[in-house]
Structure formats: structure tokens, C-alpha cells
């Protein structure tokens, strides 16, 4: 059995209707799923996972409750716009799919372009305030990868908050790609909840291109999938860009979670802050790879990155690769990484105050995560994320 068998099920006729898709398909075939031999995938072997992926394990989507849609939003089911459940905001529309795959694109981005499916476009004019919108991707009944594309364009000074939820049941492969362009002074708050089924594979790629003094404020909470990866490529193309990119992954059983970030400072006076926390239980494996790149021109850059992991069981594993790549001399860049278990003294302290062991552990883990959740602040999205953390608690039965 080959990991590329699913390609036989693809309707080639529909692919060849679009001139760029065939090229993208060729690019994907040429590259194949990445392995640990790819330096960018040093700790995650997607090809091995795909080789024994059982596409036949069907889920039942009916049981999936939609998250509270008190905001405007779009629901994609297996990558197809679900008109009945969606209430798009005026600036949200269906994306016409036919992306050109540029040289250097990753295999997963090529696969996304090749298979097409629906996408959502969100375009805000200069100064427009978009408020908060939901992007829900539900999956469960697809024999081929689900490959939605999101295109976000914010004009100068425009603002928008996107709450993205990915969920599903059964075995499926979800390969979403985000293309985000922020105009001068624009601000995007991007809160992502990855709560996929535990049989699924989730590989998200987020591209952010930032203009002068633009602000990207992102938070990803990953609790689902058998193998998950959130990959960010953020380019600060204009001066004084500001990036706050946080993530938390909670893993148990045999889950494999990967958070990979590349922050490219390409203009002066930019600032980036990242806090990535991993809580790893069972025989799960967490991965963090983060690179801060500072171009020669990007003087006065302030880059900070912190990644911390809590190992809760003897078989848990964390692999981390925080990189700095710096070509400018007047910069301040630092990264830190810590790995450890829960501190027995802290547990003892709480227990001596009459708190049960399980509660004490939960309390400490929740406290450990707090810093990562900073970008969502006290926004309306918070309950959604708190509930997801609660849900993971119960699954892991700490």
C-alpha cells in the first residue's frame, strides 16, 4: 500500500479543467509527503503516518454540534461551503480556486492547490472594521484530503477577528491553507481551535504577509488529530510590524502534535513575540520548531520566543528546535526552552491546602497554559477555548 493511493480516487477530469491545478498535482507527486529527511520536518514523519492511514474509517457527522454561531460565519463540510449552516458576513465570499504553486511551496500547499475544493475570501477595505467572524471546518466523510483555502485581505487600518474551528469524526486528512495579507496599520486577531477527530491528520499552513505597522495576533489551541501540524510563515514586510503568535498543544494517547513557525523580519523596527506551550501525556509526542529570521535591513528588531513543555507521563516525548538566523547587528533576539515535569513541591503545597491530587495537577497545568492564552484576552472567544481545554482534561483523565 502506498501513501499516494488516494490520488487514484481523484477526479482528474475536474482537475484538468483548471490550468494551474494539474501543475500543482505534478508538484505534489514530485515532492510526495514529507519525511524526517526534510529538515523542515525533522521530527514529524508524515509519509510514514500516511502509509498506514485507513481512509475507510468513517465518522458520523450528524453527532457533531456546531459551535455557537452568534457571530457571522461560514461552515465548510468536507471542504464544501454549507449554505444551510452558514451566515456569511458581507465581506465573506466564495473563493475561486486556481492558485499558482510557486517554486519552494511545500508539498502540502501544492496538494491543497491541486485538489481545489471550496475556499473563503474575506476582503476588508481601508479602515473597515470587520468585527468577529467564525470559520468552521467540519469533516468526516471524505476519501480524499480536504483542502480548503482561505484568503484574507485587510486594507489599511482595517480590523478583523477570525475564530477558526476545525472538527470532525472518523479518519480524514485536513489540509487547510491560509493566505493572509495585512495592509498598513491593519490588525488581525486569529484564534484557531484544532479539535479534529483522533483518527484524523491535520496539517494547516498559514501564510501572513504584513505591511507597515500591521499587527497579527494569533493563538492556536491544538487538542485533536492523530497527527497534527500547524505551520506558520509570517513575513514582516513593512517597518514596525508587530506579531504575537502563541500556541498551546495538549496531547495524550499516541497523538503527535507539531507547531512550526517561521517569523521573517524583513523590515526595520519589527517586533515578534511567541509563546508555545505543550502538555504531553500518555505516549504522545510533541514537536516545536520555531525560527526567527532577521534580514540585514531589519535593524532594531525585537524578537522573543519561548517554548515550554510539561511531560506528564514516562512515555511522553518532546522535541524542540528553536532557531535564530540573524543578519542584522542592531537587534535584540532571544529564545528560551524549558522541559520538565510538574513540580512535586507545588503539588504538595496544594495538597497540604486540602486540594485533591487530580485537582492540584489540573490547576497547575491550567496555570502553565495561561501565558500562551494571552492573545485571546478576555474576548468572547475565550469560553470556546476554555471548553476545549476542559474537554481534553476529561479525555486524558488526569
Amino acid at each position, binding site marked *: 500500500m502506498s501513501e499516494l493511493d488516494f490520488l487514484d480516487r481523484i477526479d482528474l477530469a475536474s482537475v484538468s479543467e483548471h490550468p494551474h491545478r494539474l501543475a500543482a498535482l505534478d508538484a505534489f507527486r514530485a515532492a510526495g509527503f514529507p519525511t524526517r529527511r526534510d*529538515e523542515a520536518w*525533522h*521530527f514529524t514523519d508524515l509519509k510514514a503516518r500516511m502509509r498506514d492511514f485507513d481512509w475507510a474509517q468513517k465518522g458520523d457527522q450528524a453527532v457533531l454540534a456546531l459551535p455557537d454561531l452568534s457571530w457571522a460565519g461560514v461552515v465548510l463540510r468536507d471542504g464544501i461551503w454549507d449554505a444551510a449552516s452558514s451566515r456569511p458576513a458581507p465581506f465573506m465570499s466564495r473563493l475561486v480556486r486556481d492558485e499558482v504553486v510557486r517554486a519552494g511551496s511545500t508539498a502540502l500547499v501544492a496538494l491543497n492547490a491541486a485538489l481545489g475544493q471550496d475556499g473563503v475570501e474575506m476582503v476588508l477595505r481601508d479602515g473597515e472594521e470587520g468585527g468577529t467572524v467564525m470559520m468552521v471546518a467540519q469533516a468526516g466523510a471524505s476519501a480524499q484530503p480536504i483542502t480548503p483555502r482561505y484568503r484574507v485581505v485587510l486594507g489599511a487600518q482595517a480590523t478583523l477577528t477570525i475564530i477558526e474551528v476545525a472538527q470532525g469524526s472518523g479518519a480524514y486528512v485536513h489540509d487547510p491553507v491560509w493566505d493572509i495579507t495585512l495592509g498598513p496599520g491593519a490588525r488581525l486577531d486569529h484564534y484557531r481551535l484544532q479539535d479534529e477527530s483522533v483518527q484524523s491528520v491535520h496539517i494547516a499552513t498559514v501564510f501572513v504577509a504584513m505591511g507597515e505597522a500591521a499587527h497579527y495576533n494569533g493563538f492556536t489551541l491544538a487538542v485533536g488529530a492523530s497527527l497534527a501540524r500547524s505551520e506558520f510563515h509570517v513575513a514582516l514586510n513593512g517597518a514596525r510590524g508587530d506579531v504575537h503568535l502563541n500556541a498551546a498543544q495538549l496531547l495524550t494517547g499516541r497523538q503527535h502534535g507539531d507547531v512550526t513557525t517561521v517569523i521573517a523580519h524583513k523590515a526595520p523596527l519589527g517586533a515578534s513575540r511567541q509563546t508555545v506551550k505543550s502538555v504531553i501525556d500518555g505516549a504522545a509526542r510533541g514537536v516545536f520548531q520555531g525560527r526567527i529570521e532577521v534580514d*540585514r535591513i531589519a*535593524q532594531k528588531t525585537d524578537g522573543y520566543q519561548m517554548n515550554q*513543555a510539561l*511531560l*506528564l*507521563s*514516562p*512515555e*511522553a*516525548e*518532546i*522535541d*524542540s*528546535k*528553536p*532557531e*535564530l*538566523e*540573524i*543578519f*542584522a*547587528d*542592531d*537587534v*535584540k*533576539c*532571544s*529564545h*528560551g*526552552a*524549558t*522541559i*520538565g*515535569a510538574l513540580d512535586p513541591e507545588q503539588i504538595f503545597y496544594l495538597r497540604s491546602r486540602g486540594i485533591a491530587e487530580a485537582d492540584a495537577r489540573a490547576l497547575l497545568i491550567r496555570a502553565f497554559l495561561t501565558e500562551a492564552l494571552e492573545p485571546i484576552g478576555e474576548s468572547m472567544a475565550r469560553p470556546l477555548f476554555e471548553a476545549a481545554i476542559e474537554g481534553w482534561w476529561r479525555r486524558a483523565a488526569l
Partner: protein
Amino acid sequence: MAAITETRETIDRLAESGYQYGFETAIDMDFAPKGLNEDIVRLISAKKQEPEWLLEWRLKAYRAWLTMADPAWARIVHPRIDYQDLHYYAAPRAPAPKSLDEVDPALLEMYEKLGIPLNERASLAGVAVDAVFDSVSVATTFRDSLAKVGVIFCSISEAVREHPELVRKYLGSVVPAGDNYYAALNSAVFSDGSFVYIPQGVRCPMELSTYFRINARNTGQFERTLIIAEAGASVSYLEGCTAPMRDENQLHAAVVELVAHDEASIKYSTVQNWYPGDADGKGGIYNFVTKRGACRGAKSKISWTQVETGSAITWKYPSCILQGEGSSGSFYSVALTNHRQQADTGTKMIHLAPNTTSTIVSKGISAGHSNNTYRGLVRIMPKARHARNFTQCDSLLIGDQCGAHTVPYIECRNQSAKVEHEATTSKIADDQLFYCRSRGLSEEDSVGLLVNGFCREVLKELPMEFAVEAQKLLAVSLEGSVG
């Protein structure tokens, strides 16, 4: 910023002043023909009158090397190396001398210029020197006083003849013949190097030192060093190098293996000052080195300290395999690159046993158009309960045409382990410069002071004799004000 401009000017001046150790000694050399094949490997082995098992070992390594590709993952750029265009054996023609009187006077003169305490001054300095001139050890001092306490300190070819059982037992046991491309090459054609054996319970009475330089055009030098410390033994080993100036790039692929048994400790210090090439990046040594220590015994200790200022390209990752319970490894490094130099260096700490600890302190300084990369691995295996690692990597940039990179890999498979890593990159702080200036120091002296302070944590790990030389080297490489 005026001070930075001045620093740059100072660097430029130094670049023009040239490499002060750049001279060449004309001595008759006995070359093997250019190129590498099984016959050359056999020739090297035959010239050294090696036993059959060692020839077989070399041939195995050579065959492994043929199947391998040179590593492409490091952040270094160089033209393809034509391995068939190199000499793999060169040795002074006269037979190995028995005492200093027999040593070629031209050679002694060269060591004189380098200030090696090879003759009686060695006694005052308290240093035993195993000087390696290209491929064959020509003189070893203090052999007798070391022999009194049972320490064996000799060239590796001598060790093969006189202590074959020890060499056979340990050679390749830490860095296997086929470990990596350059180690395989070294295993096939290694010329000479040092062998140290410290018997049980012996604290080596003096610091051991090897001083070698590359001489003669087109001879890649393939050093092989093997140090064994038996239970309770301890030794401090110093390695320093300079090389004459030349235009062609030279390949140096050394292998160093350390073995520490129960409660033994080995301290290995390096000051590396090979020819870095000229200001435009022409010439200079390619330094592709595999250094690894095995902490085999409980509570054993291995410590690597390095000051890397030379070579056009440095590819070097002194590592520790922590196999013994409670063993500890440390790595202290200063890597300074200037002009077009490239350094990709760091360490690997592999924690296999419980209660193992490791410390990594790396200071990178980039100036000119150079690129300086720290690349390190900390791996905690499932059995390494309560393992502990602390890593600190700091980079200093001088000028806006250079690059500083940090690529640590951290893999933790034990819950009770504690791993900490921190890294910073910055330039010399304006307020610190201002402070020094306001105390009446010149800008040049201030920069020197601050750079020196930046490296202090590492320099203080060096043995006294070396600390002075290290500061001198930083001065030559950076500017007149340092040290």
C-alpha cells in the same frame, strides 16, 4: 555608532597586518602519490608497519566512505573538494628521532618561532608536548616522568606498536569507522596523532599538550587522538594549532575519541588558530572534525573547552555520550569569525543513564562578512531519569554584513528530566560602551573589554597556560585592544 565603526577599522587594520604565524618551513617531504584508493590505504598502513587488523579496519572504513555523501546540512558553503587531488601521506624523511638532539634543526626553529616549550623550557612550563609535524610525531618529552606513574603518552602509531591491545580495544569504539563522511575518511587514512592512557586511580601529574600545525602543500592532515582514563583517573589535555599561510584551501579531518571509566575525568581544551584565509576569503583551512567522548563509567566527567578563531570553515561538534549513571558532560565554546570565515559548530549531549547532567555554554562572535552558527543537540533517552541539561548560547554581532545563527535540537523522552535552553543575539550595548568611555577607556579598549567579558564564562574554563594564548588569539582575530 562611532565605536563600531572604529572596531571595524581596527579589524580592517588587523586584516592588513596579516597572519603572524604565516611562514613555511622547507623540509624534505616524503609524499605518497596524489589521490585516494585502496592502494594508498595499504601504503599508509605498510609505511607505518601496522598489524593486519588495523589495515582491515582502515579498508573497511574506506569502503564505507565510498558509499557515503558529504554532509549538506551545515550552514557552510565551499567548492566541491576533489579528494583525488590530495596527498594522503607526508612525513619528514629522516627516521623518527630518539631524542631532541636528533630532531631536524629547521623544525626546532619553527617550533621556536611558535613558542612551543619543546626543550628544557618545557620543564619550567610544566607541559609535556607531543608535537605533530604534519603526519608523524617527531618528539615527545616528559615520557619518562609520565611513565613513572604509568601514564602512556605517545603518538598513536607508536601505541599501535607498543600497546596494540589497548588501541584495538578502544580505537573506533566511540567514533565508529563509518560514523560520518569525514570520520570514515579519517579512519581510512589517519596519519598520526596522540594516544593517552591514564591507569586506574592516577591523576596525571601534568597537563598534556599536543601542538601541531599543517605544513607542506596539498597534504590533508588526518589526526587521530585517543584518550582513555581508567577508573578514578583524571587528565587535562591541551590542543592548540597554527598553520602557515598559503593560498589553497586545505582539508583537515581529525577524529578525537575520549573514554572515561568510573569516576574518571577528562578535560580537553582546544585553541584553534589555523589560517583563516585572507580578507577576501581566499585560502584557509577546512576544519571538519569529529570529536566525541564516552562517559562509560558511573560519575565520570568529560569537559570540552574550545576557542575557535581560525580556519576558513569550521565543522565541529565535540560531543558527550553519557552512558554511566551520574556522569556529566560539559561544553564551553568561543567561536569567533571574521572576514569570510564560516563556522558551524556546537555539541551533542546524549543522555542515556539516570542522573546524568550536561552544561553547554556557547559564545559566538561574528564580524566582517562571516557566518557563525551554533548547532547543538540535547537528547534525553527514556532511561535517563532525572537527567539535567542547561544550555546557554549567546551571539554577538560586530558590523551589519555578518550573520549569527542558533540551531539547537532538543529531544526529551523522560518525564523526570529537566532541560533548559536560552539564547540571545545582540550587538555590544551602547550603554556599556558609554560607561567604559566615561571611565576614560578608548573606544577600542572598551570594545575589547566588553568582548572579553562576553567570553569570560568560557575563557575561565581554560587551563591557565591556555587562557593567555586564547586571549591573544581573540586579539589577533578581532582587534589590538582585546586582552
